């Protein structure tokens, strides 16, 4: 349920009705930005939004996303270090 996909606002198409064009991997669809409009609609151009049934429902927090990914990268690296250490230990053990 609730299929939501990230898209980028590329153009305001109807200011009065709060409609804008969104781009999803090169596919364009006019969406309502009523739920994410604050002040000048043009400010939305370039922003990534989460789209559901033709409505932009949330502006994606790019920083937050980057942080999440960064943390995961950190997790991976930490594991690799640990593994290398474990390998080192077992290697050592192997020499016994």
């Amino acid at each position, binding site marked *: 349920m609730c299929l939501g996909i990230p898209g980028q606002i590329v153009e305001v198409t109807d200011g009065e009705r709060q409609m804008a064009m969104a781009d999803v991997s*090169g*596919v364009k669809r006019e969406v309502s930005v009523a739920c994410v409009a604050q002040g000048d609609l043009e400010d939305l151009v370039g922003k990534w939004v989460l789209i559901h049934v033709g409505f932009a429902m949330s502006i994606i927090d790019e920083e937050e996303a980057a942080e999440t990914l960064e943390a995961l990268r950190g997790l991976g690296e930490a594991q690799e270090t640990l593994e290398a250490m474990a390998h080192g230990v077992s290697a050592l053990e192997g020499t016994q």
Partner: protein
Amino acid sequence: MNMMTGKMRDERVTLAHGGGGKAMRDLIEGVFTSAFVPDAMEDQARLMDAALQEPGARLAFTTDSFVVDPVEFPGGDIGKIAVCGTVNDLAVGGARPLWLSAAFIIEEGTEVALLKRIVMSMKQEADKAGVRIVTGDTKVVGRGMADKVFVTTSGVGVIAPGCDLSAGRVRVGDVAIVNGVLGDHGAAILAARGDMALSAEIQSDCQGLGHLMQAVMHAAPGVRAARDATRGGVASVLNEVAETAGVSIEIEETALPLRSEVKGMCEILGLDPLYLANEGTLVVFVPEDEADAALAAMRAMPEGREATVIGRVVDGMAGRVTMRTLFGGARIVDMLVGEQLPRIC
């Protein structure tokens, strides 16, 4: 003197053009015969080809009706599809396409100019494929009794002695190769139809695969079977082959060639690109040791430039197709139940 010239002076087809009289003859002569078979007097083509008379040669015969909406779309039209589709059905069975028939069901009110464009594109595609459209038919039905134009093509080809491509010959260890990106036709049609108000610059992959198949058979003489993936997409072809051959097929999610716009379209509508329709997508099964040769031969041709291995035949439950997901999970790729519907809410 009459200022109007040419046989077909009406702008739109009326029921009169289906009545079997002069108006019908004018439609046929003005639109069809000129492009296809200028000298047909009998209502049957009379043909022969030396290859058919070779001992051991077999005749291949196939048919398809084409009903695409819209009839013209980025990358092609119903006429192009009608020729490519039947040429491809002959080609993937190992046959050299020789002759096509073309039967048109035309809705009253259809623009004659549209018909002419469709016919021209059929002629072009037939010329490209090296086949001749040798016999045909037109029917006109009332408004709302058809959707502009339906085209049915049948094809006759010749299978050289000894050539035997069939799904039943696929073996464990064989490699499954596609000639290029998947789902372009389905996505292009979705966009062109406008129902979901999506727009994208996706062209249908509609193309003839006859020459490509010849190249594959030459480079990989052990080729087992081939299919052109149309309705139901690559997933349906894989399931069909797995079932017929009594094998399992395993494909790699990361190996599937997909255009970014097609992915986007699928994400928006909750569709799976493996089930999207294609009109020029070849799936060939070759023995592992001929895979590289087949790939190289395909990539040397425009229709196969993006050819790639998508999976292989494995031991397992007959008819089972699985996909290894991008981080090692596996899921079953079953046949579609009905048509794929947007899954949104």
